[in-house]
């Protein structure tokens, strides 16, 4: 069984609970909301995840060594933003897909999230951009076991192997580069 890593646990107090559920390691990434170029960190200690509504700024962030993860969910029409996906793939970064967004939504919002995530992940696979599934858990109810995360990944259009890769080997590569 490979080692599973949750790269963005919002509440670090849940680390022990996460290990009990089967995660080998958990990280609490520094989440940076990028509104202007100066917001992108030049140096980092640990994992840095960037997010924001401006796709051009996120593309610039991909070029910085300090940035490890890019959360695309706030970008308008992120699921068909080939430019951003290419920038992530070319710079060896990874997208972060926080599952808390899926779990905390309901009804039409969840359906919309699933449709957009499916389209986005299909493009990521096609353009060879890395994707890491993270929890962004604030409460114990947000935490899921690796098996459950893989099942949710499959519901978003990944194969079982791709879902497993996104929380094991790909996550390990991101950790080693940080």
């Amino acid at each position, binding site marked *: 069984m490979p080692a599973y890593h949750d790269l963005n646990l919002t509440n670090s107090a849940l680390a022990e609970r996460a290990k009990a559920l089967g995660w080998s390691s958990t990280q609490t990434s520094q989440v940076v909301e990028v509104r202007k170029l100066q917001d992108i960190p030049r140096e980092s200690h640990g994992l840095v995840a960037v997010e924001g509504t401006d796709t051009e700024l996120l593309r610039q962030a991909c070029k910085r060594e300090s940035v490890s993860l890019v959360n695309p969910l706030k970008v308008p029409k992120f699921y068909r933003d080939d430019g951003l996906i290419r920038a992530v793939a070319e710079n060896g970064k990874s997208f972060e897909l926080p599952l808390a967004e899926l779990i905390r939504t309901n009804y039409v919002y969840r359906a919309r999230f699933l449709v957009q995530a499916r389209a986005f992940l299909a493009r990521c696979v096609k353009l060879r951009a890395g994707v890491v599934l993270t929890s962004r858990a604030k409460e114990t109810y947000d935490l899921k076991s690796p098996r459950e995360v893989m099942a*949710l990944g499959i519901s978003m259009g990944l194969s079982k192997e791709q879902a497993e890769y996104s929380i094991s080997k790909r996550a390990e590569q991101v950790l080693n580069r940080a």
Partner: protein
Amino acid sequence: MLEKKRYLLYKVEATRKISADEAKHLAYEALFEFLGEQGTAHARTQFKAFSEERQEGVVKCSPESVEEVIAALAAKRFWKKEPVALRVQKISGAIGKLGV
């Protein structure tokens, strides 16, 4: 021909202990919300048992739909405006092996 099936043992985490009747409604609500009526029927899901003492239940489904059912249970986050988590513990082809 006897159809193959899988039994999923899941644990309920909630702010209070729930009864077997509530557990049945909770499991079906999770499945209907995520898979819909057709998806739930296609997965051949069936609520089998619930231990009020251990807060563990068993859901039966077809082997092809195991991942969908796990995802449906995992995606249930709120129930009656209270936080809840349904965590799959074990999967087996025989209900007796789950020990409920």
